[in-house]
C-alpha cells in the first residue's frame, strides 16, 4: 500500500509506531489516581491560586457554570410565584387614598350596597350555570344478542 493511499488517521498511527522509544508519548499510569493521598494545600500554592483568581473569574467556563447555578433558584422562584396564582388573591387594601381623600360615610354605605348588588348578581347568574351539568347522561343499555 502506498503512503499516499493511507488516510490521515492511519498515517498518524503509523508515524507514531515508527517513532523511537524515547519519542513515543508516555502512557499515563492508571494507578496514579488511586495512589493520590490527601494533603493540606501548601501556603504557596494557595497564594498562587489567589493570585490567579481574577483569571479564573474571567474564564468563560466558570462564568457559564456560575450563571447557570444562579439561574436555577431564580427560575424556581418565578415558577413558584406563577403557580401560586397571585391574581386569585384579594389585593390588600391601600389605606393611602382614604387618608388623602376621606370619603363621607354616606358614600361608604353606597359602595357597600353596590358591592352587594354585584355579588348578588353573580349568585343569581350562577344559579343556572351548573344545573345542566348535573343531569344524568343518556346511556344505551339495550344490550341484546
Amino acid at each position, binding site marked *: 500500500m502506498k503512503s499516499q493511499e493511507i488516510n490521515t488517521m492511519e498515517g498518524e498511527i503509523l508515524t507514531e509506531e515508527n517513532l523511537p522509544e524515547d519519542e513515543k508519548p508516555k502512557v499515563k499510569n492508571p494507578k496514579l489516581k488511586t495512589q493520590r493521598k490527601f494533603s493540606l494545600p501548601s501556603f504557596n500554592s494557595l497564594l498562587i491560586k489567589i493570585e490567579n483568581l481574577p483569571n479564573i473569574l474571567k474564564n468563560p467556563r466558570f462564568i*457559564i*457554570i456560575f450563571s*447557570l447555578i444562579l439561574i436555577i433558584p431564580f427560575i424556581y422562584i418565578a415558577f413558584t410565584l*406563577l403557580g401560586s*396564582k397571585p391574581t386569585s388573591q384579594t389585593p390588600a387594601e391601600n389605606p393611602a387614598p382614604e387618608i388623602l381623600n376621606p370619603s363621607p360615610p354616606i358614600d361608604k354605605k*353606597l359602595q357597600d350596597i353596590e358591592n352587594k348588588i354585584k355579588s*348578588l348578581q353573580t349568585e343569581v347568574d350562577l344559579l343556572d350555570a*351548573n344545573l345542566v351539568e348535573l343531569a344524568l347522561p343518556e*346511556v344505551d*343499555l339495550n344490550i341484546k344478542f
Partner: protein
Amino acid sequence: MHSIYAKSLKPKAKRLVYFSIFIIMLLAFSIKHSANTYGQTPFEKTKEEYSIQLKKYNLARNNYLTKKANYEAFKTATAKKETFESTKSYLIEINFLLADKLRLVKEYGNSIDWENSNYNKNELLTLLDEELSYLQNHWADVDKTTALEQLPPLAQELKDRLNTTIVAKTDKNIGAYELVSTERAHANSNSLTQQIKNYINPLSNDNNRAIINNWDSEIDSVNQNIQLDIDKAKLEFEKISIERKSSRVNNVIEATKGARAELEKSLDLYREILRII
C-alpha cells in the same frame, strides 16, 4: 469567539449544562402540573374526571357496536369472544360514567352553602352514596362474567336501577340544591332590600318621595313573588319520590326559574333607585 468558548467546555461542564437544563424543565413541569391540579375545586376536579370518563364511554360504545355487528354477521366463536370482551368493557364504562356523574352531583352539593337551610345535607348525600355502593357491586358482578350470555341480564338490571332509584335520588338532590341556592339568594336579596331602604329613607324629600314609595311597594311585591315561587318549588320537591323516576324535578326547576326571574327584577330595581337618588 463563542464557538471557541463552546469547544473549550469540558465534558464535565457540558454535563452540568445538560443537567441544569433538565432540572429547570423538571421544575417547570412539576410546578405547572401542581398549579393546575391544586388550583381546582373538588367540583371542578370531578367535572374533569367525568369528561375523561365520557370519552372512554364513547370509545367503548363504538367498539361494542362494531364487534356486535361483526358477531351478528358471521356468528363465529372468535367474533363471539370479541363481542363478549367489548360488551363487558362497555358495561363497565357505563357503570363508571354513572358513578362519576353521581360523584359530580355530590361534589356540587358539597360546594353550596347549606347554612340556615331546612334540608338535611347529609341525608341527601347519603342517597347518592347508596347508589354509588350499588354501582360498585354491579361492577363486581360484571367483572366476574365469563360468557356473552351473562351480560344482557346485567345490563337490564342496571337499566332498571337507573330508571328507578338512581334517577330518582339524583333528582331529589338536584331539587334540593335548587331550593337551597334559591332560598339563599332570596335571603341575601331580602337583606339587601332592607339595607337599601335604610339608605334611601333618610334621603327622602318632596321631590323623590313618590318615587321612593312606589319603589318600596314594587320591591315588596317582587319579594313576595319570589317567596311564592319558592313555596311552589318546595311543594313539588316534597312530591319527588326516591323510589321511582318522575319528572317532578322539572316542576321544581320551573318554579325556581320563576324565582330567579324575580330576583333579576329586584336587581334592576336596586340599580334604578340608586341611580335616581
